[in-house]
């Protein structure tokens, strides 16, 4: 896999990934739209510029580990992994279908490279923390990343993990929170207010960074910064726009848990192909 070293290249790759996401979701007929689109830039940055990994050796022992706690956004991980060369892109059309490795929520044993099985919210960070703890016992140098949603901060299990990682000073662990402010029942600050989120993490002895989750420079710089933090886990609060790249999905909670209909997908793909109307699409 070729790493992408320029911002423009990453941006174009993320756009490709968003297009395949729309196609995949419309084909699956169920699944989540907003979260995966919102995290396409973070996943692109991770797989093409940040993680030490080898798509041909998904279980390479020195790879960086990427846990996905909010398993429902796994479509964006599948598309990004396919683009990185973990498996053929044609498998993407099997999402959520009988017999597919691409389960509706990720399952470790079905697809090497997913690292764990997740979906029920609030349990991913603790797994990543346990993994990071075990790796540190053996002086392993790889890093453990865990992507979490903001909505799953409602769950006690998540905060138990925040306590644990703070106590044990797991500096090999970096959490990336998709701060898109929506969850199924509405805006996070209405459903169960999380703010001041930064102060909460700080009070639990974490190092906190904020980034624009669509700015590749900031994503990469924050992850590098976290590597240099001593004796503390780092949380990168990535401010993202749910549904990013498709105007009628952006910031709309109702797009959290449903896929686009074919007609909506056509409009969405047109927007993505034309970069929001800025250029003429190749299929126009």
């Amino acid at each position: 896999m070729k790493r992408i070293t320029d911002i423009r290249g990453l941006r174009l790759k993320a756009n490709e990934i968003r297009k395949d996401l729309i196609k995949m979701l419309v084909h699956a007929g169920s699944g989540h739209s907003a979260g995966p689109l919102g995290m396409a830039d973070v996943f692109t940055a991770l797989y093409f510029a940040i993680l030490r990994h080898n798509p041909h050796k998904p279980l390479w022992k020195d790879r960086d580990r990427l846990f996905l706690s909010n398993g429902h956004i796994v479509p964006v991980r599948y598309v990004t992994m396919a683009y990185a060369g973990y498996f053929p892109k044609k498998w993407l059309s099997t999402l959520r279908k009988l017999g597919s490795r691409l389960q509706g929520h990720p399952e470790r044993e079905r697809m090497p490279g997913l690292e764990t099985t997740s979906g029920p919210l609030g349990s991913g960070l603790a797994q990543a923390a346990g993994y990071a703890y075990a790796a540190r016992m053996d002086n392993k140098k790889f890093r453990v990343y865990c992507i979490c949603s903001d909505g799953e901060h409602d769950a006690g299990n998540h905060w138990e993990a925040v306590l644990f990682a703070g106590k044990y000073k797991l500096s090999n662990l970096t959490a990336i929170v998709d701060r898109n402010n929506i969850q199924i029942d509405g805006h996070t600050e209405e459903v169960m207010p999380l703010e001041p989120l930064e102060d909460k993490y700080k009070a639990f002895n974490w190092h906190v960074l904020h980034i624009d989750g669509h700015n590749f420079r900031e994503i990469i710089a924050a992850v590098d910064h976290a590597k240099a933090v001593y004796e503390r886990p780092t949380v990168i609060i990535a401010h993202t726009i749910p549904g990013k790249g498709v105007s009628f999905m952006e910031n709309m909670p109702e797009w959290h848990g449903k896929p686009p209909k074919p007609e909506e997908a056509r409009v969405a793909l047109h927007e993505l192909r034309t970069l929001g109307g800025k250029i003429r699409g190749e299929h126009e």
Partner: protein
Amino acid sequence: MKMHLSPKLYSPAVEQAPTRNGYGEGLVEAGKKYPEVVALCADLTESTRTEGFKKAFPERFIEIGVAEQLLATVASGMANYGKIPFMSSYAAFSPGRNWEQIRTTIALNNVPVKIAGMHAGISVGPDGATHQQLEDIALMRAMPNMTVIVPTDAIESRKATLAAAIYLKPVYLRFGREKVPVITTEKTPFKIGRAEIYREGKDVTVIACGSLVYEALIAAEHLKKTISVQVINCHTIKPLDSKTILRAVRKTRAVVTAEEHQVTGGLGGAVAELLGKAYPVPLEMIGVQDRFGESGQPGELMRKFGLTSTGIIAAVKRAVRRK
């Protein structure tokens, strides 16, 4: 096969020890043998008998605090990495509180975490119903990929702990708080998934687990002049040793199950499922009859709930009458 049971088995001088002690010893031994073994505990290090391991291997002991969901999920992460985590707490809380975490992150994820549930059953006594876990076998047995073991005494508990350490699947081990008779010896065979016939008999088969195996043996001894009772120690409830059970039941054609657990979903449930499918015969179930426990001395409670040799004797007679 010779069972090498304790020579003092039927004597009042039979030794007594809590099964959790066997767990503690087995854990230290597993730690010495296998460097991957780590122990996690949720603020109950002494009473779960994890203390010995903590002293022997402080760098491989992880204190989790009063957080059973965290206990399960951190253990999952460590097993996923390549460690062999033993996570212990009271069965009322683990698997009582963290069932979903065990299901998703351990069983479905298929990582070899060993879950030790202590103070199971009503015999925990004065603490009362909140702490008397009577549904854990059902909770764990219903879960794919999970192995469920209820050792009968402290010696078997040590063997089960050692065997679980190198068993490549998730395992649930159930232990009690109180002293119970030590009926096996070092030479008694133990293998995960294999029920052992501890006493031959031809009229009724009693299939028991935990301390009820002892009660069943005492019942059999008491009845020996009138009814010939076969006693099976069915320490592994999942996978159930259907071969041994069916072979035994084809001979006796009447069954009593005995366990310190709800009659729904535990050993009795597992045996009923098997016999219903393969060989229906009269079946009596000794266990807690769909109610919660209460405070009291362990012995008083076991008597009140009929989890004694007396209760088993009555059930054996009922089973024989139904033949």
